C-alpha cells in the first residue's frame, strides 16, 4: 500500500507559446485533503486534467497510483472520481438516467447500478428529483448531482475542480460537510478552489499556485505562521490612505494596499487596537490573518484578478 497517491516533479504544460503550468512539484498523500489554490488562470485545471490524461504534460515526471497518466490513463481513471468544473450533465436526460449512464461508464455491474444510484441520490438529498429532467434542477442541485456522480465508481481519489464556485452559502456548507464525510471514510481528496476560506476549512495541506507556478506549500496554519503571522486590520480606501501607510511603516507593520482597502498586519491584536486609537480611525475589519493575506503577500496581487 503506497502512501503517496500523486507524485509530480517539475511538471510543465504549454499550449503553443503560452505556459499554463510551469514546473509544478507536489505530493498528495493517502487519506488527506489536498488543496490546489489560486486565482482563475493559475493553472489548476490544467494540472488536474494532466492527472487523468485528458491533457498531456509537456515535460516533467508525473504518477498517479504509481501509473503515468500519459501511458496508462485508464488504470488511473478506474480509481478516481472527478467533479468537473463544468457540470457536463446530459440536459435532456433525467437525473436518474444521467447517473445510470455514468454508472455504466465507470463499470458498476449492471445489477448494482440502480441501488448505487439511489443510495447516492439520497446521500445528496436529491431522491425527490430523481425522475425529473436535469433542466428542472437549480444550479446548486446540479452541482450536488455532479458531486455524487463522481462517487459512483467508489473512487479512492476524489478530485474536486472548483466544486463550490458560484454556489450560495447554504449549498457550499452542505458540500463542505459531505467532503469531510468522504475524508472520514478514508478517501483522498484533491480540491481546487479560488476561495481561500474554503481551503482553510477543508484542506490538510495545500499549495498556492499563481501564473502556473507553486508559490507556497504547507498546511493552512503553517502557511499563515510562516508568511503572515498575527492579525490584520483592514482600512477603507479613501482620503488618508497615505496617512495610514506612513503610520504603519513607522511602526514597521506589514502593509498591503489593493482596490478593496489597506491591509495592516501586526503580531498582536492589541497593537492594532492601539493603532486604531492612535490614528483615530476605525478599521473595517479586525481579524486573525488568513490564507488570503498569504496570497496577497506572496503575489502582491488581488486574489480575484485574472492572471
Amino acid at each position, binding site marked *: 500500500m503506497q502512501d503517496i497517491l500523486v507524485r509530480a516533479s517539475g511538471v510543465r504544460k504549454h*499550449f503553443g507559446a503560452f505556459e499554463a503550468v510551469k514546473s509544478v512539484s507536489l505530493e498528495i498523500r493517502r487519506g488527506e485533503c489536498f488543496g490546489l489554490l489560486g486565482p482563475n488562470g493559475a493553472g489548476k485545471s490544467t494540472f488536474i*486534467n494532466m492527472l*487523468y*490524461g*485528458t*491533457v*498531456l504534460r509537456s515535460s516533467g515526471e508525473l504518477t498517479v497510483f504509481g501509473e503515468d497518466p500519459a501511458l496508462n*490513463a*485508464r488504470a488511473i*481513471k*478506474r480509481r*478516481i*472520481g*472527478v467533479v*468537473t468544473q*463544468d*457540470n*457536463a*450533465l*446530459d*440536459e*435532456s*436526460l433525467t437525473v436518474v*438516467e444521467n447517473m445510470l*449512464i*455514468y454508472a*455504466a*461508464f*465507470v*463499470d458498476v455491474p449492471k445489477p448494482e447500478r440502480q441501488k448505487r444510484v439511489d443510495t447516492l441520490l439520497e446521500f445528496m438529498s436529491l431522491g425527490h428529483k430523481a425522475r425529473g429532467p436535469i433542466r428542472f434542477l437549480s444550479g446548486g442541485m446540479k452541482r450536488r448531482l455532479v458531486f455524487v*456522480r*463522481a462517487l459512483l*465508481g467508489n473512487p479512492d481519489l476524489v*478530485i474536486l475542480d472548483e466544486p463550490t464556485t458560484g454556489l450560495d452559502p447554504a449549498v457550499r456548507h452542505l458540500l463542505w460537510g459531505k467532503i469531510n464525510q468522504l475524508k472520514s471514510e478514508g478517501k483522498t481528496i484533491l480540491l481546487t478552489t479560488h476561495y481561500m476560506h474554503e481551503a482553510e476549512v477543508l484542506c490538510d495541506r495545500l499549495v498556492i499556485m499563481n501564473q502556473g507556478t507553486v508559490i507556497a506549500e504547507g498546511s493552512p496554519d503553517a502557511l499563515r505562521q510562516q508568511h503572515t503571522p498575527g492579525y490584520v486590520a483592514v482600512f477603507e480606501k479613501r482620503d488618508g490612505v497615505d496617512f495610514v501607510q506612513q503610520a504603519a511603516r513607522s511602526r514597521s507593520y506589514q502593509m498591503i494596499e489593493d482596490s478593496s482597502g489597506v491591509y495592516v498586519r501586526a503580531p498582536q491584536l492589541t497593537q492594532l487596537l492601539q493603532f486604531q486609537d492612535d490614528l483615530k480611525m476605525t478599521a473595517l475589519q479586525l481579524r486573525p490573518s488568513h490564507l488570503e493575506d498569504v496570497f496577497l503577500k506572496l503575489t502582491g496581487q488581488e486574489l480575484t484578478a485574472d492572471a
Partner: protein
Amino acid sequence: MLETLRLSSHIVRRNWWVYRKDFLANISPTITEPSLMMLSLGVGLGSFVAQVEGHTYLQYLAPGLAVSTAMFTAFFETSYGFFVRMTYENVFKAMLTTPIGISEIVIGEFLWVALKGALMMSFVALFLSFFGLFANPLRFELVPLVGVLIALPLGATGLLASCWVKNINQFQSVYAFVISPLYFFSGIFFPVAQMPQAMQWVAKSLPLYHAVQMSQAIFWDQDIGYAFLVHAPVLLIYSAVLLTLAYFQLKKKLQS
C-alpha cells in the same frame, strides 16, 4: 480492443437514450421527407416521365431516397449533432474522467452513426415497401448493410467537418458544397449517364453513387451480386480512408 469496443458501446447507449427522448420529433423528418418526395416527384413529376431504365419513376426514385436518408442522417448526426455534444453540451468532458478515453469516444461515434444509418435506411425502405416499391422481401436484410456502407464515409465526413469548422454555422458551407451536390448528382433522381462525361466521372468517383447503385439492385432485385462485388469495395475503401482520417483528427482535437 475488446475493452475499447465494450466502452464504446456505452457511447452508443448514451446517444440512443438521448435520441429516444424526442423520438417522434427525431423520426418525423426521416418519414415525412421521403413520403413528400415520393408524392411530389414520384407521383406528380413522375406522371410526365414514361420509364427510367425499365422502371416507373416511383420505382426508380425509391432506392435512392432510402440511401439519401442514411446519408443525411449520418452527416447531420456527426456534424451538428456531434458538434453540439462536443462544444455546447460538454458531454465528453465528463466521459473522459471515466475509463472511457478519446479512442472510445471516437469509435463509439462511428458505431452510433453506422447503427443510425442502418436503422433509418431500413425504416424508409420498409415504408416504401408498403407501396410495392421493394421487389423481393427476401432481400430486405441487405438494406441495413447499404445503410452502414453509406453512413460510415458520410459520418466520417461530418466528423472531419466538426474538427475543421470554427463555429456551427460553417456546417452550412459543407452542406452546400459537398452534401447537396452529392445528393443531386449521384443517380438518385436520374441516371448519371444523362450527364456530360466529365460529370459522370466525378459522380462515379464519389461514394453516394455507389450506395445508390447497390440500393437500386436490392430494391429491384437485379444483379445484386454484381452490385456488392463492384460497388461495396468502393464504399469500404472510402469508409476506411475517411474513418482513419477522422479518427486521427478527432484525437488531435480532443487531446490537448
